[in-house]
């Protein structure tokens, strides 16, 4: 298995993307922002399509869309009057988020139709790649680039981890101590956008939610220590990638995205039984 180059590329990109998903995902689950992650995964698709329709590299569109919308969602959200910790409260901006990203999806539909009239036959494959990911189709350069971006994102995430935790748990106290709560909120969701764009290329836009939320949710159930939790989330995500890729290699009719997410979700289900 490891002698095949496509497999090595897939593992390289997949491992580091999973690392990033686990680390960022731990905070996504902590802050109850899974829906934001979902929304970002659904704007990745129109972003990529718009870029393709305009003739630019798909990835540029992907990143631009997810980061821009991410920053927007972060800006819509809580400031130092923070919602973190308020029992049972769902921020009303969830509805606004849902509406905005549905509209963007609608635009995606438009671009898709535009695209299919301009390059007949190719559109189906484009759609498939963006939605389902193409981890087995990554070239060596692409895989290395994906890994580097993921490592950078993970590093940045670790740098802001402590003040972000402070701001997420007790935002007023953190703000009084000089933590830039609002800026962190915006930056965090924008960073989530970057990770989502990365993951879209591996497991696909529709499935990246699984890689971001399921291992992290399992980690939250299994331990309450932040350091252990973050490490565990990353570990479980990486395990899902390796397991999924191995399975997909062994069973050709099994799509890699399904295998990876299947393992991640199974991990979560097991964690609900264990804890």
């Amino acid at each position, binding site marked *: 298995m490891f002698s095949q180059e496509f497999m090595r590329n897939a593992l390289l990109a997949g491992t580091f993307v999973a690392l990033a998903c686990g680390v960022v995902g731990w905070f996504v689950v902590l802050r109850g922002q899974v829906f934001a992650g979902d929304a970002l995964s659904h704007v990745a698709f129109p972003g990529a399509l718009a870029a393709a329709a305009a003739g630019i590299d798909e990835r540029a569109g992907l990143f631009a869309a997810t980061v821009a919308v991410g920053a927007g969602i972060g800006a819509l959200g809580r400031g*130092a009057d923070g919602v973190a*910790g*308020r029992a049972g409260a769902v921020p009303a901006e969830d509805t606004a988020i849902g509406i905005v990203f549905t509209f963007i999806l609608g635009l995606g539909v438009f671009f898709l139709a535009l695209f299919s009239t301009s390059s007949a036959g190719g559109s189906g494959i484009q759609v498939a790649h963006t939605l389902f990911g193409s981890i087995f189709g990554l070239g060596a350069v692409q895989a290395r680039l994906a890994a580097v971006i993921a490592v950078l994102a993970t590093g940045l995430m*670790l740098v802001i981890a402590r*003040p972000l935790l402070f701001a997420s*748990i007790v935002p*007023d*106290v953190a703000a009084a*101590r000089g933590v830039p709560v609002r800026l962190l909120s915006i930056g965090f969701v924008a960073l989530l956008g970057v990770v989502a764009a990365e993951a879209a290329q591996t497991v696909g836009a529709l499935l990246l939610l699984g890689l971001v939320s399921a291992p992290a949710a399992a980690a939250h159930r299994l331990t309450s220590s932040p350091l252990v939790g973050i490490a565990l989330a990353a570990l479980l995500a990486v395990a899902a990638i390796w397991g999924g890729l191995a399975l997909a290699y062994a069973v050709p009719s099994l799509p890699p995205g399904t295998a990876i997410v299947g393992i991640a979700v199974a991990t979560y289900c097991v964690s609900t039984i264990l804890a």
Partner: protein
Amino acid sequence: MPAVELSGAAVRLGGRTIWSGVDVAVGDGEFVAVLGGNGSGKSTLLKAVLGVLPLAAGGLSVLGRPAGRENARIGYLPQRRSFDSGTRLRGSDVVRLGLDGDRWGLPLPLPGRFASSRRQASARVREVIELAGAGEYADRPIGELSGGEQQRLLIAQALVRRPQLLLLDEPLDSLDLPNQAVVAALVGDICREEGVAVVLVAHDVNPLLPYLDRVVYLAGGHAVAGPVEQVITGETLTRLYGLPVEVLKASDGRLVVVGQPEAPAHHHDRHEHVH
């Protein structure tokens, strides 16, 4: 050097002047309660001291410097929101955040030189948790604890850096009477033994009577400061409100204010002062 000094201070919020001409000094190690009806601007006073809200007029110095500069030496307990029941972070971790939550990067488990500072930090966290009387439940997920227990851990969090000034916003508000007495005694002890200046916002002065040095009473946009027996009298309050107000003294020493008007309800759009 007084811990807090306001001279001729005024504050505006949402186009309204909340209070003006306020002259208050809180000495080193003094226990001062801030009282007044709903909407009189008590929390606003704390926010001004923290530098979160700028003054519209007058001067303010906190620990010898302009407001907001010395916040690392201030312990702050914001107006209470209960933690979401699913918050898994342990109480001790929440207190730990008060120590270094605002520092970027992660506390790595490095050996050698760093080990001793880590041990010191853990010891300090333990110490302050014991001081707050929360030792028994500090290692449980904070979401599972009762209101009073969460309150104590948050007080520990405010104290962990040995602040010179402690600001507490309505800490007794949602506690039952026995717990109010206990928390009041705790704060009184801390003030005396650690030499911390305390500014505590409350609705009802009675639980605090045994520990107070002085009182600041906010009403009608103005403030009166002084010892309890001078400020909480029918004469002073009538002058302050401009309406007949009586103060009755029960046989056990408790004070009851009668005829105190409620400030007219002003609908603040909460989003107006989040920036």
